[in-house]
């Protein structure tokens, strides 16, 4: 504030510019704000209200972009830790409790590293390839329903959109491999092209039977079709389709045992060989986002989406906090105190060495755990979308665990086995699945529903 007490002539040039601006902001700012609140805000609200679809879309996209990074972080941590235990190792244990912040630090490290472009690489393509790969991975989230009403866009061609966008990943990988000016990258890119294109066909065909059954391509509709209980899940009507989808999706996401594109013992790191810094980070994140997406897709298409295995009786919460009046205030003030003391009591009584204040802290922590649990439980019971989200996440992460488990146990297949498997086994099997489904539908429709 020394500028205010100084004579105008003693001010520096910067001060002479800033000071009038400061006065202007202080005086004009409130006036403009008030005017905006009175005259412009209703207009904006009207526009937003009339274009609720766009608002919903923008909000959803932001949420998805924000969600994709922590999801990748969690899966990376999970992979490190689970494989470590399978390998009789400890895994990351330095950053955070049990090493849980390891992937965050790894992400920071990736940000701080030198972003290196090799000589003779095609710099523009080289830069944009990871963005492309990451974008196609994140775009797939758009149609994935996380819970009842928790989706960005309910496309009526949702499945088609998924395969279209998912298939675009290969373009990103191919240009990443091509532009790196490295033969390992080139081999990795070509391998990914061959692999993804081959497995795209059984992947798509395996779902056609399901589409025939469901009569829709909207993922939201498919999810709703499976409500009621686990016997309604499509995995029991399309077991072969589910199996083919699982295998082909593993290959699509370049996961072990189909991770030929980045086979470290053969072609170093495949298309990612020359990448460093955040560009590598994008490729890396995209891989794990893809893992989540194929897990989520498996859940949505075949394993009942957000539906609980056994339907939970819906309870309408009739508790209206407003009716309590002043009692609510007293409850909020008194109940935490009493509960904290109550939870502290057993610690204080049984642990003679523990000072009272430590017992109080423990009691407070225990109360918090119980309170959070109670709130979450209430949310589960009271809100459909919350229960749906919980079940969706549980199922999805079970599949993520399955993919990590496969990575920990299986060696890599060879390229000719890989292609042979796709064309000789998966493709005929998916066609067989389609025909059986079609015939079954025709027969059942003509007999059961004449």
């Amino acid at each position: 504030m020394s500028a205010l007490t100084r004579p105008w002539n003693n001010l520096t040039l910067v001060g002479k510019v800033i000071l009038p601006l400061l006065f202007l902001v202080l005086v004009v700012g409130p006036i403009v704000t008030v005017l905006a609140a009175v005259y412009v805000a209703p207009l904006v609200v009207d526009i937003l209200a009339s274009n609720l679809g766009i608002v919903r879309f923008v909000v959803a996209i932001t949420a998805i972009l924000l969600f994709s990074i922590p999801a990748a972080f969690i899966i990376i941590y999970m992979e490190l830790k689970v494989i470590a235990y399978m390998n009789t190792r400890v895994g990351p244990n330095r950053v955070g409790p049990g090493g849980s912040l390891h992937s965050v630090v790894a992400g920071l490290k990736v940000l701080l590293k030198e972003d290196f472009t090799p000589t003779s690489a095609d710099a523009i393509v080289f830069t944009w390839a990871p963005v492309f790969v990451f974008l196609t991975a994140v775009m797939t989230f758009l149609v994935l329903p996380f819970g009842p009403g928790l989706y960005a866009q309910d496309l009526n061609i949702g499945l088609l959109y998924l395969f279209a966008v998912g298939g675009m990943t290969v373009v990103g990988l191919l240009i990443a491999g091509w532009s790196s000016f490295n033969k390992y990258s080139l081999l990795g890119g070509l391998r990914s092209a061959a692999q993804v294109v081959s497995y795209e066909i059984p992947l798509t065909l395996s779902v056609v039977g399901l589409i025939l059954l469901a009569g829709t391509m909207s993922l939201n509709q498919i999810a709703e079709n499976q409500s009621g209980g686990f016997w309604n899940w499509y995995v029991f009507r399309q077991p072969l389709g589910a199996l083919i989808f699982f295998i082909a999706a593993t290959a699509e996401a370049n996961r072990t045992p189909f991770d030929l594109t980045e086979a470290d013992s053969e072609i170093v790191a495949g298309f990612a060989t020359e990448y460093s810094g955040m560009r590598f980070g994008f490729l890396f994140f995209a891989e794990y986002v893809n893992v989540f997406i194929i897990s989520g897709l498996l859940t949505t298409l075949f394993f009942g989406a957000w539906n609980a295995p056994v339907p939970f009786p819906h309870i309408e919460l009739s508790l209206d906090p407003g009716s309590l009046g002043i009692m609510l205030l007293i409850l909020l003030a008194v109940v935490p105190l009493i509960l904290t003391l109550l939870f502290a009591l057993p610690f204080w009584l049984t642990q003679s060495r523990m000072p009272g204040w430590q017992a109080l802290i423990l009691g407070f922590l225990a109360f918090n755990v119980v309170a959070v649990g109670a709130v979450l439980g209430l949310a589960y019971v009271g809100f459909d979308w919350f229960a749906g989200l919980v079940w969706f996440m549980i199922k999805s992460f079970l599949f993520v665990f399955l993919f990590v488990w496969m990575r920990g146990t299986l060696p890599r297949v060879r390229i000719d086995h890989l292609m042979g498997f796709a064309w000789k086994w998966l493709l005929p099997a998916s066609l067989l699945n389609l025909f059986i489904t079609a015939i079954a539908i025709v027969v059942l429709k003509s007999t059961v529903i004449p």
Partner: protein
Amino acid sequence: MVTETPIGKIRSDDDPRVLLDEQIGSFEPVPPYPPRTERESEFYTLGDGEMFLNMGPQHPSTHGVLRVVLKISGENVVDLDPVLGYLHRGVEKLCENSDYHHIISQVDPLEYVSSLFCEWSPVMAFEKLLDVEVPRRAEYIRVLTGELLRVASHALFQGWMALDLGGLTPILYSFIERDEIVEMLASITGQRMLFNYFRIGGVNGDVNHEFMSRLGDWMSRAAKQHETSIGLLNENEIFVRRMRDIGRLDRDLALRMAVTGPNLRAAGVPYDLRRAHPYSVYPELEFDIPVRGTGPEGGDALDRYLLRLEEVKQSLRIIDQCLHNMPDGPVMAKLPRLLRPRPGRAWAAIEGPRGLYGTYAISDGTDQPFRMKIHDPSFVHLQLVVQLMRGNLIADTMAVMASLDPIMGGVDK
């Protein structure tokens, strides 16, 4: 005076002393000189649709610092040219300049995963030069520690094999098994890796209580542990299908390529030095020589893999017999501090986990050998890669190389 242009740079036309900043557009792994041999000119000539792929010396699966130039056509390997020397230490020259006791520590790091076998053959050669009789207890200890290390080496082989095929887990179980053995050996030798334990005329120190208790502990569950590690991989369909029918080696080619050890036995030749040229106390011990690939087609990578697992069982049998039959007595022959063998020549060869480890030593009457030639099986087996790999896939290169089990320390000497 301008002599040579560094690879990848261009000299200015105006002033040949100036190196221009611009790069030559090619980074092909082709030597910057005209080919000197028939084979080199044949290899470095590209056919239609072929390209070179430089693998190594820094590559995740070349078992050390090996550089292999692959000539590939798509995913198929047309030809390959291993380039050695990145780990060359000139051990033979060092041995010619060190006295006989010192040599044992010089040859130790040759094969860092089974270094006792590298000590064994020079020590045996020097004993032949000196006409020393080794005490029987020392021989039993040599066989015991040697077979332990063979188990450790084969365990590590199994892990590497899986790692080169993309399986992450088995290598760590292999290292558990190996770690128990090296810790055991460390209790008598003081070292975990380069033991420096055998001496001319015996071994450096008797087995102690800690070793025996660890060994007994380990022996009680070694067979079960071995079954576990077999169960990790052997029935894995992907693993078996990748190993089957690659790198076929038949009896005739194996003998002509001077292959020895498990690789030769997996090609159908029941040749094991422990029986063919019995040394130490092996004639007194009971064990079988597993042989695979006796058919006309010979053995493939899977045969070589399975044969090593069978050898582990035989080694466990030998260890068991050593523990029961070990006589009492001294572990060192009486020898002067300064060894001056009479002029002469000696050749000693032993059966190691990779094959024949030989030493040809010439003495001129001084305290240093006049010439010492070390024969390492990895060196011979590595040149087999060229024969076995032609026409296979890039992914098979790793599988075949791993199934031959070369150690670059021994290859480069």
